[in-house]
């Protein structure tokens, strides 16, 4: 049953030096002992009617979440193992970001929106929620239908609406909330959950595994090309609610799926933790394209508030000729800590990472990718565009590993940073590790300020300063934007312009 897991562990172990980005902080027996002692202290578990679990985290909360979601025993056991492992870990400190310590006992780990009963259709959804979605520009209705996009909206950790499932179901595509999948397709969940990002992977992944509330699940069966872009929109609402989404996408042999993820969050004063996990699995000849536009609340211009976005995303190219492509546009969050990666296990498999990360005001981003080449003729391409403005600090951190078996593997990395203003920073930390003489890795990076001659040229043609900056920055990011689905590309370009407002002049 856990073959996938074992294979993955082997793959990870093969990289005898798991280097940066892995949580290597050790355990403290005392702490574990303390927590174990506390376990049943409160004595409440399932009888609680509340849709909001009390603050704090302990085994009971984990049991409560699992119970609340009516999960089968294997899920509970998995969560508990994750939780116990989490207790042995320490928050990683190697990233180039600074923030006050997080009190994990001062957060809520479960919140559900009020609901009347089982929802049969969109009409039954609280109209207040629908209006909020509309305000955020998330079109759940007709225009989405026409655009051919199925929407699985996660609101406060619980899926409230899912459309298009029947059409997808006809083709055998399973797409919906993670909770549903746990009930309807436990075999698939058992088979793949945690096989790409095991709960032991890092501190935040362990936390997520223990307490994740919901997320999306997608399975595309053999030979099926998913006919529409799948998308989800996330939103943080209730105060002090840590968000722990969990996404799992599996493309079976010869399948294709393109998945869009977009985030937007309303103003908040208090920092909020977001620790999502995304796992992708591509079998022989399968392809997964995963695109993200991340625009969580970045904090105000003085650096107050904003989301902590500590995400673990990883794809496994298990099969021959498989391909996983990550495209991300990160403009939001006070802190971004995220390294979507690919384990290129299958021969001839391909991994891609295209990223735009923008930090303005006091935002900090430490983001990049991991490309682990295991199979023969594996290829990876990394294109990263970092833009720093205001007091923003932007770090690219990327690992390219060519393991023993990666004969003729190739990597190309291009990392460009643009600085706007003299109080920001741009940093580049690539790690290239090669253990095969026929493998080749190439890394290029450049850092420069936004071109004054370019700005003048635009202005001489009548274009104002902010438009000129937005245009030049968008041009700088072109290579990444063209990887995005059309509708996202437009959104992303607008976002950059908005995010850069006030950064020059």
């Amino acid at each position: 049953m856990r073959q996938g897991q074992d294979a993955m562990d082997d793959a990870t172990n093969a990289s005898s030096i798991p280097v940066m980005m892995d949580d290597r902080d050790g355990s403290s027996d005392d702490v574990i002992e303390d927590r174990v002692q506390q376990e049943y202290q409160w004595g409440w578990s399932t009888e609680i009617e509340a849709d909001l679990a009390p603050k704090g985290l302990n085994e009971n909360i984990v049991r409560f979440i699992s119970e609340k979601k009516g999960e089968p025993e294997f899920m509970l056991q998995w969560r508990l193992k994750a939780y116990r492992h989490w207790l042995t870990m320490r928050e990683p400190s190697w990233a180039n970001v600074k923030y006050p310590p997080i009190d994990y006992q001062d957060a809520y780990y479960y919140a559900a929106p009020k609901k009347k009963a089982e929802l049969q259709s969109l009409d039954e959804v609280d109209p207040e929620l629908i209006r909020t979605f509309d305000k955020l520009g998330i079109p759940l209705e007709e225009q989405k239908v026409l655009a051919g996009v199925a929407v699985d909206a996660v609101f406060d950790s619980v899926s409230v609406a899912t459309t298009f499932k029947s059409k997808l179901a006809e083709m055998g595509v399973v797409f919906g909330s993670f909770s549903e999948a746990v009930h309807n397709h436990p075999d698939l969940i058992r088979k793949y959950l945690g096989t790409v990002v095991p709960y032991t992977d890092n501190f935040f992944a362990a936390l997520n595994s223990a307490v994740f509330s919901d997320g999306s699940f997608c399975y595309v069966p053999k030979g099926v090309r998913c006919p529409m872009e799948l998308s989800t929109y996330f939103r943080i609402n209730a105060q002090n609610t840590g968000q722990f989404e969990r996404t799992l996408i599996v493309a079976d042999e010869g399948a294709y799926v393109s998945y869009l993820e977009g985030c937007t969050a309303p103003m908040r004063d208090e920092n909020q933790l977001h620790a999502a996990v995304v796992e992708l699995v591509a079998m022989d000849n399968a392809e997964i394209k995963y695109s993200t536009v991340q625009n969580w609340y970045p904090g105000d211009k003085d650096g107050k508030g904003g989301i902590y976005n500590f995400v673990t995303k990883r794809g496994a190219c298990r099969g021959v000729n498989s391909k996983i492509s990550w495209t991300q546009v990160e403009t939001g969050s006070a802190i971004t800590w995220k390294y979507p990666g690919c384990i290129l296990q299958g021969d001839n498999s391909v991994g891609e990472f295209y990223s735009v990360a923008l930090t303005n005001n006091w935002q900090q981003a430490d983001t990049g990718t991991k490309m682990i080449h295991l199979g023969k003729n594996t290829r990876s391409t990394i294109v990263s565009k970092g833009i720093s403005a205001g007091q923003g600090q932007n770090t690219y951190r990327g690992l390219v590993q060519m393991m023993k078996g990666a004969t003729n593997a190739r990597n190309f990395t291009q990392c460009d940073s643009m600085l706007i203003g003299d109080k920001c920073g741009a940093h580049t930390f690539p790690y290239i590790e090669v253990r095969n003489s026929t493998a080749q890795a190439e890394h290029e990076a450049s850092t420069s300020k936004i071109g004054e001659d370019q700005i003048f040229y635009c202005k001489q043609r009548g274009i104002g300063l902010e438009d000129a900056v937005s245009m030049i920055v968008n041009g700088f990011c072109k290579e990444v934007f063209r990887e995005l689905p059309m509708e996202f590309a437009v959104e992303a370009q607008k976002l950059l312009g908005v995010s850069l407002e006030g950064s020059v002049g």
Partner: protein
Amino acid sequence: MLEIRDLHATVEGKEILRGIDLAVKVGEVHAIMGPNGSGKSTLAQVLAGHPAYVVTKGEVLYQGKNLLELQPEERAQRGIFLAFQYPVEIPGVSNSYFLKAALNAVRKAQGLEELDAIDFLELVKDKVKLVELPEALLHRPVNEGFSGGEKKRNEIFQLAVLEPRLAILDETDSGLDIDALRIVSQGVNRLRRPGNSVLVVTHYQRLLNYIVPDCVHVLVNGRIVRSGSKELALELEEKGYDGIADEGDETVAEAAQGEARVV
């Protein structure tokens, strides 16, 4: 159209323009000639409002209003166009997207309706032919990977689309072969209208065979030392700048009188 009075300008603290007086009337074409380092391009950049150049003295009136207090984009929106000596590359921004943004910014400032994509394409199609610019270049990033000649033609193409009132051509002929020179000049000539003026900045006389000026000014060491009719350009060709500069300071006074005549 344009009136420059005792204009002094510095770059990085070094004085380049040391008192320029010049007036260009509506419908006229003026040529500014001079040796390398005389300040020709500086004058062009100052008129366009390049931030690296600091005006230390004097004034510039454009359509009767103080030009120097305007931002570069405001000058452009009021009809001043500079064809750059070294057109700038903007990676990732397509030529047509850039030009549409520019055109609409100018139109908006002038109270005209912005053009939609279809009307814009229509307009562009005509103008592209005018300068024999391969249409493919429209979809490439601004000036990126263009040959020298293509860059210069692209400048004139932009000129054609934006239809400025005052066009300043900064060494547009440099680096062009004869065929390209002819194409560029034709482009400029077809855009000459009674209501428009052109300021041609050039080192060589040959461009003036194609774009015939009403008036030629010789700029040496930051000052206009002589002004005259188009024949002055031929004289320069014959004698060289040294010959003209040798005539010394008296010519400066003479030039000043010439100025008066031009105005």
